[in-house]
């Protein structure tokens, strides 16, 4: 009973936050609503006994991805009027894509073949049951090739992303820390001894 109430509360917050992500006028507000959506989704996964996924969602998406996202969005100089130009032109293709997505989800969620209607509730486990250990065991035994393949694809994507942004200017100045730390006093200053000068005038 209590769990059902929590589920509906979380679901309502999630829907509201997701809706605000696309309707908020200010992009920073939209990004913060996306953070709220992730946090609520993580709560829902926790209700499904998927503790590792729930915590990983917070750690990766809220703790890292959205921070970088906000970092970029906060620095953008966005003209809201220009963004709203062509709203009606994009409406029809947008609605078509949304319709296709809803239809696909309906096929999976309501379809007889997938049997999601008769999906049993997850078995509650005691607090010392390690969800993470089970996941790790599966990932590194049964699904090891798929897992490594995904890792390699991600690595290639990272290398490609860095290679795309790597434009080195010829005339840019930069520091070489290795050379900075081997510098000795003799390389930078020269101590000169010279006799004291006599004062030119009289007493004053």
């Amino acid at each position, binding site marked *: 009973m209590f769990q059902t109430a929590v589920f509906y509360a979380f679901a309502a917050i999630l829907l509201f936050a997701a809706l605000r992500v696309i309707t908020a006028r200010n992009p920073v507000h939209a990004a*913060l609503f996306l953070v709220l959506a992730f946090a609520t989704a993580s709560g829902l996964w926790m209700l499904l006994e998927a*503790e590792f996924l729930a915590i990983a969602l917070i750690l990766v998406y809220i*703790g890292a991805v959205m*921070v*970088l996202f906000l970092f970029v969005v*906060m620095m953008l100089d966005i003209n809201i009027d220009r963004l709203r130009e062509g709203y009606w032109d994009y409406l029809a293709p947008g609605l078509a894509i949304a319709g296709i997505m809803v239809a696909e989800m309906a096929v999976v969620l309501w379809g007889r073949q997938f049997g999601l209607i008769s999906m049993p509730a997850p078995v509650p486990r005691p*607090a010392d049951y*390690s969800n*993470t250990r089970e996941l790790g065991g599966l990932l590194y035994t049964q699904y090891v090739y798929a897992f490594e393949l995904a890792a390699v694809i991600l690595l290639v994507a990272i290398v490609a992303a860095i290679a795309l942004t790597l434009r080195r200017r010829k005339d840019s100045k930069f520091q070489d820390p290795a050379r900075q730390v081997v510098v000795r006093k003799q390389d930078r200053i020269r101590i000169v001894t010279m006799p004291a000068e006599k004062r030119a005038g009289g007493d004053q």
Partner: protein
Amino acid sequence: MEFFEQLLGPAWPAIWTLAKIVAIVLPLMGLVAYLTLAERKVIGYMQVRIGPNRVGPRGLLQPIADALKLLTKEVIIPSGANKFLFVFAPVMSIMPALAAWAVIPFSPQVVLANIDAGLLYVMAITSMGVYGVIIAGWASNSKYAFLGSLRSAAQIVAYEIAMGFALVGVLMISGSLNLSAIVERQAGSWGALSWNWLPLFPMFLVYLISGVAETNRAPFDVAEGESEIVAGFHVEYSGMAFAIFFLAEYANMILVSTLCAVMFLGGWLSPVPFLPDGFIWFAAKVAVVLFLFLWFRATFPRYRYDQIMRLGWKVFIPVTLIWLVIVGGWMQTPWWPWGQS
């Protein structure tokens, strides 16, 4: 206790948990208050000054006077600020600093929630602390505050990766994400030599230094950098809203020290085999790490921003990655003296 259980009926577990939360948070707040005094005194003596010595005997009531002063001041909301986010930011920064204490084991049985994914929970909760800084900087509608929050965002993302890898090393040796199990795994016949700091020494250093960077403490305090951007992200805050940022910073310092004690310094275990284990050792270890924080602040000048980035990405992350491979290989050989997990 059974009397209360009968009196309150089904509400009893919630009330009992609340009581335990209060029993953790109240001493923590006291500790924060006196940590500020300790900081001023320690840095004072390191700079051959006396530090605060006027309020109460030897200045012992100074933090209380500070708290009263901040409580009675007005909270000014800048005219161009986003009001909701401006007030919400201090809450976002104190929430993770307090929530992470739920899984910290103080001594063998004393822990609020002994969950299996304790380490992951701590990492997830502490990674949310940066939102307080980012939202504060953005909502203030001030250039200085905004620069501070951008600096903080980039810095915290960089150091969190190194911190995460250092904790992966702890996870490999312990074979568990449960913080109590991590401490118990460090028990051994050699006392302090059985703790994780020895096999994971490079990671211990990386964790400690990343902890200083994560809490925005000197020498990594570019997010507030007084001499460059006035007070950084909290430049527009006054009164209690400012005090909450202050509380969060010191609570985070205590949290990082505690995690350091739990993961690398054996938690409540005694450093010498002939003395009994207990909470006193835990408190002593936390105090030593906290002293290091104050010592760093009194000793080192502030890092330059590009040097901070270089240290995080080009030094710490490779060091932890290489040490992960070394420890992983070493654990498979018969010459691993710290026992099997």
